[in-house]
């Protein structure tokens, strides 16, 4: 349910963008949700719809896409997909990563050298990848 807070951030950002770029209307928004945060897509899209209504941004179509999470070891250079490590996580561990993706550094290790010193290359959380508006 903290998906709502992130959905609100998305809509507020669209409003801020509209103001800054002096747009009459935002017509399209493209969002990527990173696999690592395991956002409940249904809840997220539901919240988005609700907030879009609330903020009277109803001309805006929101496209939500998933982004694979890729991790890369800083020690040995090995790169892997979070989907692989995901299976080894307990429900509780997955929940903590859902709230704060950085705690992945506690629960996962580089499959090759066992280091926790890896980079989240992509697919961490919510980001806006495109905004289309009309002047």
């Amino acid at each position: 349910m903290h998906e709502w807070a992130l959905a609100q951030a998305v809509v507020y950002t669209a409003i801020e963008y509209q103001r800054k770029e002096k747009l009459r209307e935002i017509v399209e928004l493209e969002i990527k949700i990173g696999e690592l945060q395991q956002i409940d897509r249904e809840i997220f899209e539901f919240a988005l719809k609700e907030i879009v209504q609330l903020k009277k941004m109803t001309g805006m179509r929101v496209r939500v896409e998933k982004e694979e999470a890729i991790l890369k070891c800083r020690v040995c250079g090995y790169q892997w997909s979070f989907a692989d490590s995901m299976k080894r996580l307990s429900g509780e561990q997955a929940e903590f990563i859902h709230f704060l993706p950085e705690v992945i550094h506690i629960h996962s290790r580089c499959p090759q050298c066992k280091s926790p010193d890896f980079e989240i290359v992509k697919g961490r959380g919510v980001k806006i990848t495109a905004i289309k508006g009309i002047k």
Partner: protein
Amino acid sequence: MNIDPRLNIIKERLRDVRRVVAISGGKGGIGKSSVASIGALILSKSGYRVGLLDLDFWGPSLDTILGIENIFPREEKGIIPPEIFAIKFISIIYYAGERPLPLRGADISNAIVELLAITQWGSLDFLIIDMPPGMGDATLDIIRLVKKVEFLIVTTQSKVVLETVEKMLRMLKDLKVPILGIIENMKITNSPFVKDWAKKFDVSFLGEINFDKNLETSIGNVDKLLETNFAHSLKKIMRF
């Protein structure tokens, strides 16, 4: 295009927070966490609505000082900080427990942005932020993201501490970040050195806290903490 939507919601999350005070100093081991936790207790006992945020992800200690255990945020349109001693408390320990969390700066930054973006503090008189040592990602992010933040600086009288605290003060002044004042902690002599030193920076010297050998045995017990000389001095400094 790659916009981080979280950055735009932080102001909204802190809208009903009257004052945000970051307890800092640049140096470690000078009493920042002691001032943050006992200071929050004092404010709360005095009837203020207080939030407390532990941003020292490598060594969170507010929970230990206050003896906080077995609480967890509720989820509702974000995360709702649990209340303890009438203080709304957020710490990395909810998600990391007592395990080591080897995070680089970029991850620290991302986690701070996340906590600021999803925490629903509601209405507060004070949000007290316990800062980690250094002037790295956490300090730079709080300055960049929380426009209404004020810094409260803790120091001791030691030369090596003062030269580091001085760097922090110079950076804050240079960036025109409001500085509430300086507290001298762990005082063991009567020397007015720090008080005089503070004048150089045109920052108010708020007061002194003596070295208190009873602080250690009061850790984890809020009633005992409030009876220490440390707490009595801090109350005076805060004018209660």
